[in-house]
């Protein structure tokens, strides 16, 4: 392939440990006794539950409706009965519960009616809707709703569509096996993305430690008469980070502050392309995914697993060895420890690694930073991790931002190389979440201030109105007196100057008050405008992050969904 490759700085080369799990073809995991399907499985709005306990559902039936544009539907992975819609432990390091639909399969695997469609005959808008309603999200791990990434930027021509088959995390082979076994459907799925985005070229990047996948994809591209370039990229973690792969294939560096379409490029994972094709051409929503089960197990292998399958049912297939003490979801570089064997497999679960003290020894004691700079050299975003570490530790969060902490993709390269074994990523997450919560507190304080001002204003208005009423009453009284000059001459003589005076004063005060209120009304208070926007932002952000924090917390600093996408595409791995 005469494709010019670019380099990204930094990166590390851990042992890949991929061979054990590619010895067997993808297996179909058996139907578990119970499925626990979390409603919130993607970035964006929390889908609304569409079913209730006791209801019978069919395979592929929508059980969670997308909440807004950046959100994605969730479906029943098989037919059966809904036992409950309740909070269940999530596949998340926090172990916090999340609203889930618990389904007891009936074993019949009865489908809803499926309508195969030809995307070329559909409006692009309709294709995006179908993708959203089929629950197609980034399966590389970032789970950003794919339809929201399928609109080209208006001002910038779409130059490159990058398809991510790099799969740089050690141990992980789900994309590798998918490319080996189902390359044609991937290539067809890429066709959907291409037709929606109309890029000038399509580049499929695969790390060169997967020659079988490269060959299979090349053959499929050729068979289907496409002109996509299948490019073997040097194996170096995190070559599968969206930004790194874009850099390697196109030479473009998408900064943290930009979305990739603004630079004429977009990136999707191979498994996402596969599900997009199944969704459109077969009418099958995303009900399962390929999961690598490896590590400390007798039988490492890739399985096609129904979403919602409890971890314990999956790991049983691999026969974990007795000294297994934990299970990691995702790779060993960016993954996390599953909080419980009851936690379900979700769309983000690309890999489950059984860990043992021998495989992942406990971290050695942390030493002080010796400023050796190894971390900076390894950082693919060319940051200065030790400076960020220093200021995170000192809780000087402003400084961490000066050192671009929000450009950190938490890839772990810095921690990997640090001779002082400092859990740098941990410090960065801490600093980021501190910054977010402070920001939130500040926004809340602003909102409270605005409320206070609003109340003050109301009080003033009421006072003014009262003064106006008083003035009116006084004026009326004066008029009355004028109307009956004879009758009340004496009293008038005694009262009238005082009354007239008071009425005049009150009238002036009322007028001034009115003018002031008017003036203030005319001048838009910038705190008001800000607060509304900020409140909305907080609400949106909260909606996004609460169920999935802190993994998806990177979305917080994004002001809107579009930025969130930029963020998540950074996190899109493998």
């Amino acid at each position, binding site marked *: 392939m005469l494709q010019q490759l670019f380099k*990204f*700085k930094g990166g590390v080369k*851990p*042992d890949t440990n991929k061979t054990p799990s590619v010895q067997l073809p993808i297996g179909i995991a058996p139907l578990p006794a119970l499925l626990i399907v979390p409603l919130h499985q993607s970035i964006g709005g929390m889908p609304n539950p569409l079913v209730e306990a006791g209801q019978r559902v069919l395979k592929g039936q929508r059980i969670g409706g997308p909440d807004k544009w950046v959100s994605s539907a969730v479906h029943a992975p098989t037919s059966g009965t809904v036992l409950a819609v309740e909070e269940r432990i999530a596949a998340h390091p926090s172990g916090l519960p999340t609203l889930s639909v618990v389904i007891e399969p009936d074993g019949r695997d009865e489908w809803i009616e499926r309508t195969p469609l030809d995307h070329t005959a559909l409006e692009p808008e309709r294709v995006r809707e179908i993708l959203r309603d089929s629950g197609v999200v980034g399966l590389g791990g970032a789970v950003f709703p794919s339809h929201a990434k399928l609109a080209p930027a208006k001002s910038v021509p779409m130059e490159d569509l990058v398809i991510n088959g790099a799969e740089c995390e*050690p141990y992980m082979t789900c994309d590798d096996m998918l490319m080996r076994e189902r390359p044609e459907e991937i290539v067809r799925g890429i066709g959907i993305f291409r037709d929606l985005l109309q890029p000038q070229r399509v580049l499929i990047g695969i790390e060169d430690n997967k020659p079988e996948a490269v060959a299979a994809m090349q053959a499929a591209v050729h068979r289907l008469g496409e002109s996509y370039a299948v490019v073997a990229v040097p194996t170096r973690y995190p070559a599968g980070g969206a*930004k790194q792969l874009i*850099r390697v294939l196109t030479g473009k*560096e*998408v*900064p*943290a*502050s*930009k979305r990739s379409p603004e630079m004429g490029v977009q990136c999707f994972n191979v498994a996402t392309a596969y599900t997009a094709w199944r969704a459109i051409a077969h009418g099958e929503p995303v009900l399962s995914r390929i999961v690598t089960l490896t590590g400390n197990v007798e039988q490492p292998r890739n399985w096609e697993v129904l979403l919602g399958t409890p971890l314990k049912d999956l790991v049983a297939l691999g026969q974990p060895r007795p000294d297994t003490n934990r299970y*990691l979801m*995702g790779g*060993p*570089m*960016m*993954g*996390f*420890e599953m909080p419980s064997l009851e936690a379900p497999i979700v769309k983000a679960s690309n890999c489950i690694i059984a860990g043992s003290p021998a495989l*992942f020894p*406990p*971290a*050695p*004691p*942390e*030493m*002080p*930073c*010796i*400023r*050796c*700079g*190894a971390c*900076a*050299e390894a950082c*693919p*975003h*060319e*940051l*200065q991790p*030790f*400076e960020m570490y220093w200021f995170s530790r000192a809780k000087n969060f402003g400084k961490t931002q000066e050192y*671009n902490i929000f*450009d950190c993709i*938490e890839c*772990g390269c810095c*921690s*990997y*190389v*640090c*001779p*002082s*074994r400092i*859990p740098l*990523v*941990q*410090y960065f997450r*801490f600093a980021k979440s501190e910054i977010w919560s402070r920001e939130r507190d500040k926004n809340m304080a602003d909102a409270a201030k605005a409320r206070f001002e609003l109340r003050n204003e109301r009080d003033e208005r009421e006072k003014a109105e009262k003064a106006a009423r008083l003035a009116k009453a006084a004026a009326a009284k004066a008029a009355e007196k004028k109307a009956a000059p004879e009758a009340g001459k004496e009293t008038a003589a005694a009262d009238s100057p005082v009354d007239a005076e008071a009425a005049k004063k009150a009238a002036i005060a009322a007028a001034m008050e009115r003018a002031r209120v008017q003036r203030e009304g005319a001048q838009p208070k910038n705190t008001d405008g800000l607060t509304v926007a900020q409140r909305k932002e907080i609400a949106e952000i909260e909606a996004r992050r609460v169920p999935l924090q802190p993994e998806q917390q990177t979305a917080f600093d994004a002001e809107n969904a579009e930025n969130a996408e930029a963020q998540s595409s950074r996190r899109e791995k493998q």
Partner: protein
Amino acid sequence: MNFNTPPYLTQNVSVQHVMLQVLAALLPGIAVYVWLIGPVVVVQIAITTAASLLAEAFMLRLLNKPLGLFLGDGSAIVTAWLIALAFPPLAPWWLLVVGALFAIIVAKHLYGGLGQNPFNPAMIAFAVCIVSFPALMSQWPPVDLPSGVLDHLALVFGYSPRIDAMSGATPLDTLKTALKLGDGSASVASVMADAHTYGYFAGKGWEWVGAAYLLGGLWLWQRRIISWHAPAGFVGGMALLAGGLWLWNPGQFANPVFHLFSGGSMLGAWFIVTDPVSGCTTVKGKLIFGLAAGALAYVIRVFGGYPDGVAFAVLLLNICVPLIDLYTQPPIFGMKGKP
């Protein structure tokens, strides 16, 4: 902090691992040094190491830090070896102990311990001792020292008087003195014609010590323990200045190769300016640090009152590190060519 967090994989490296490699890289230089001067060098290294470790242990205990963890990290040994190699080989034992104590207690631990010291501890030791005991710190034995190891030890432990024959000046100092004090007729060429003191390209014998340090340094670079920037800067800075003056007046200024292989140049270039803790961290910063240190060391040793300038140059630059780092921050991913 919670250690049970990603990444679950780490490279098999540690501070100890880094320090041990630095020590290993010093071995060729030490070997040549022993060949040149005698086993007394090893004794001096042992004395300094023992003093440093004791001081380290004392301070760790005093500051309530985990003893086993930090004593084993090797950083105190590196400091000790650098002190022993920077001091005159026949310096009295207590001078080395004073240096070691000062380096570990004041320059390292009072500034916060491992990783926190703004100044290079070994250079602090050197500077403090040369200011306090200028005579003792300037006595360098001639290489064809007639006496044996017992005589050396007697000198070190103070049993015999420090006679002049045993304690001369470095080739660097000899040259400077000859050029300065002479009647003006002395030129670099005439001074260096003395085969007794001068070898192929620098001080007789000493040049090979320098070459061995260079070898060790290159090995460290090849092992990626150090980056090439600071050493290249140092060599470049010194060579530029020395080369310029030498081209201008070869009679009064020695050539750059002589300077690079004399005094503390090679030790400084590969083992001192590369100290990560007290040095710059950015690529540009390291280059600037090295360049300035090399040039300054040259200026001090040629025009200043001290026989060598590496220590003062490095310490001066240590002060500037935060500033240099601040102004040499590299652009991050996606922000190149943008403000």
